[in-house]
């Protein structure tokens, strides 16, 4: 019982101090605008990617759940915007991501790292 209490106290301490630093940024309406602008700059058609809040929220949820099946979650700023598409393509099969899910994850990451 003592071990349990110590462990729970440690968890509470760590959660209160650190958890927000490691969670991927929450989706905001500003993020959707930034994401759409980025696609315009890159010459891709935003209508093909549906850069809306629903897509970004889905992308964030998939990013936070599928990726941690194998490894801890990297920060969205850990890799460049040019590196992320290749990384996601490389791991999409392993994470069992369908094409639309793959796009949602990438849209979220690219938008979040601009914030």
């Amino acid at each position, binding site marked *: 019982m003592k*071990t*349990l209490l110590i*462990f729970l106290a*440690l*968890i509470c301490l*760590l*959660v209160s101090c*650190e*958890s927000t*630093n*490691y*969670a*991927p940024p929450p989706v905001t309406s500003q993020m959707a605008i930034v994401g759409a602008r980025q696609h315009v700059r890159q010459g891709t058609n935003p209508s093909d990617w549906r850069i809306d809040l629903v897509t970004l929220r889905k992308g*964030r*949820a998939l990013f*936070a*759940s*599928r990726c*941690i*099946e*194998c*490894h*801890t*979650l990297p920060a969205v700023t850990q890799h460049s915007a040019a590196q992320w598409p290749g990384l996601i393509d490389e791991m999409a*099969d*392993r*994470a*069992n*991501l369908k094409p639309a899910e793959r796009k949602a994850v990438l849209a979220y990451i690219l938008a979040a790292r601009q914030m």
Partner: protein
Amino acid sequence: MSQSQSDWKRFPKQDETGPKCRAGVILPGRSWNASVVMGKFVWSILFLSILPAVSCFSGARHFTYVYETTTSAPGSVELENWVTWRRTTDPGRFDQVDFRHEFEFGITDKFQVSIYVADWFYARDQDRSGFTYSDSAVELIYNLSNPVIDPIGLSIYQEFRGGDRLFEWESKLIAQKNFGPLILAYNATLEAVWEGEGLVERSGELQQALGASYEISPRISVGIELLHEFLFPDWRDQEKIRNVFVGPNISYRRSSWFVTATALAQATETEGEPDFQLRTIFGFGF
């Protein structure tokens, strides 16, 4: 029961979270003839289970005794092969190697089902040795919250196990929190076992398991696992047995497979319990 049969009964049987929850028994009449047949059978299973490794993908475990809250992606199928070696020296030296072949199916984003096709073991002491089939099981895990974006990740676990003169019910609460490269996990397990002729022999177990794993590179994690368990023979609190096991673990993953190993030493001095145990899980996905 003869003396030799009762000797077997003191040795542990495989459990996925604890080193010993009840006795493992080579049943009368099937100890040696059956072991030869079982030997061929289990080696065939082992060979077939390793074969798909060439072309498969999977998620990875950071622990071998502690469960994590994450569930498999919907539509995914994974095969995991478990090997657990235990050595007991008090009273008398005894070695047992447990094997498990588990298929894991992702059903939804939050729900997975696993089938333990066959749990079997090889046991050896000074007088004899042999293989024995133990049981098969179904495991269900439902994820309630995410360990990264929620304050704490939670999953609930239920397992039903059946074998020759054996039925087991196991419930578990799994908690996990990820702090960047650090994963902390906690399991609280309650288990009830009915075994023997007419399933009249009862026992229970209450267990806590703690794990910490640090990702030192995208492919390698190292950590520690701790098990704290109470065994209740015949569900009697007065006769409970307390065990504590602790030891390091390491996990290595590639694009098509992973392997995780944990070595645990007994921190208590409980007679008849393993002094040392080593568990390895090889995983492949389809």
